[in-house]
């Protein structure tokens, strides 16, 4: 335990925020991390932000973010790979 993913804050509203992760959105509760702003990154577990994350570090830590960034940058997608 436990599943938690980094997500980017899109909107905030008092104690909640709308976050998104590669086109998936969740409304989460922010009381455990205090005030956050759109554009910031948070670690989300069971509908709650449990930590703030530096955006640069997020990109370096979580493969899913580095992969997505690579795809956007036009790097060769995984589909080209062939098993040896």
């Amino acid at each position, binding site marked *: 335990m436990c599943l938690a993913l980094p997500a980017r804050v899109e909107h905030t509203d008092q104690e909640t925020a709308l976050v998104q992760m590669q086109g*998936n959105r969740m409304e989460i509760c922010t009381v455990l991390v205090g005030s956050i702003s759109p554009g910031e990154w948070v670690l989300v577990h069971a509908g709650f932000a449990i930590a703030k994350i530096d955006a640069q570090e997020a990109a370096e830590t979580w493969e899913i973010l580095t992969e997505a960034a690579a795809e956007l940058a036009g790097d060769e997608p995984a589909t080209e*790979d062939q098993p040896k």
Partner: protein
Amino acid sequence: MSRTVPKDDSSDRQSTSAAPARLEQIVLAHGGGGELTDELIRSQILPRLGNEILNRLTDAATLELGGVRVAMTTDSYVVQPLFFPGGDIGRLAVCGTVNDLAMAGAEPVAISLALVLEEGLDGRTLERVLESIAAAAAEAKVQVVTGDTKVVEHGKAEGMYITTTGLGRLIDGVSLGHDQVRAGDVVLINGSIAEHGLAVLSQRKGLSFASDLLSDVAPLAELANDLVRRFDGVRLLRDPTRSGLSGVVADLAGSSGLSVEIDEKAVPLAPPARAAAELLGFDPLDVANEGKFVAVLAAQQADAALDLCRQHRFGGQAAIIGRVTDRQPPMAELLTVIGGRRIIQKPYGEELPRIC
């Protein structure tokens, strides 16, 4: 019936080696197309209804009628909600049926349409679904030739349920099946996985999760038929619907008596689907697809087959994702992104979102 049950429990260490339990009660997972569905079929249906054709448990049954080889399939559609991102129950019904026929190596010809409607269903909803069925049938080049309509009381049928039967003409010279698979064959998929199941889940009431994901629901007969006509080395076609790619690959090892190795890096998976799966705690390999097929074919024809797929609108992201080996005992393995190895197993049947 659209699942192949591993043929011999004693030699197949992939499948559950426990004896089928007495059926106490139906649970949701019995309808999930995974282990529990297999068990239901094995322990309840085959003993009472089995025959040479049924026992093969292929996506579509192949029969000979007056010298003509036909394929026949049946499916029910109980998806909730009726309209989901990328599709609806109507489109799903046509495509699912047509795809099952295509997996048998048949050219779809006709489908029947049985509707069970809930009392109180909005007229406009029915119109939209029927329009969608018409559009999908035209796209798939099949006709709805017969049907039935029933209405049940308010509170039953959740809007509507649809059952179809599909009929198709087997393409000459084509004989697909697990028994055709040989060591050295490659495994091909026509595109990215895990989109349908996650798109539908994102619409489920009570799950505080929304997504840009679209169902990949699509009619695949044109591409699949083309593939088998041009490449005599196609051994098997399966669509990874409920129980996902895991189900198809586990069945492949279980039923062919050979081993399968899938290269995780090669499996097309779009970032939004990957993220959604991670958010919910699912393995993308276990998620349903409705616009995908897996083909097992002779290695020499792989590149050409891949080219064919990539030129088709439903095959742009096609990829060779694995191969068949003669390693014993038969095992379905994933070569993970970090170069590790682990077994691919058929899912239970109800994948529940988890937080732990």
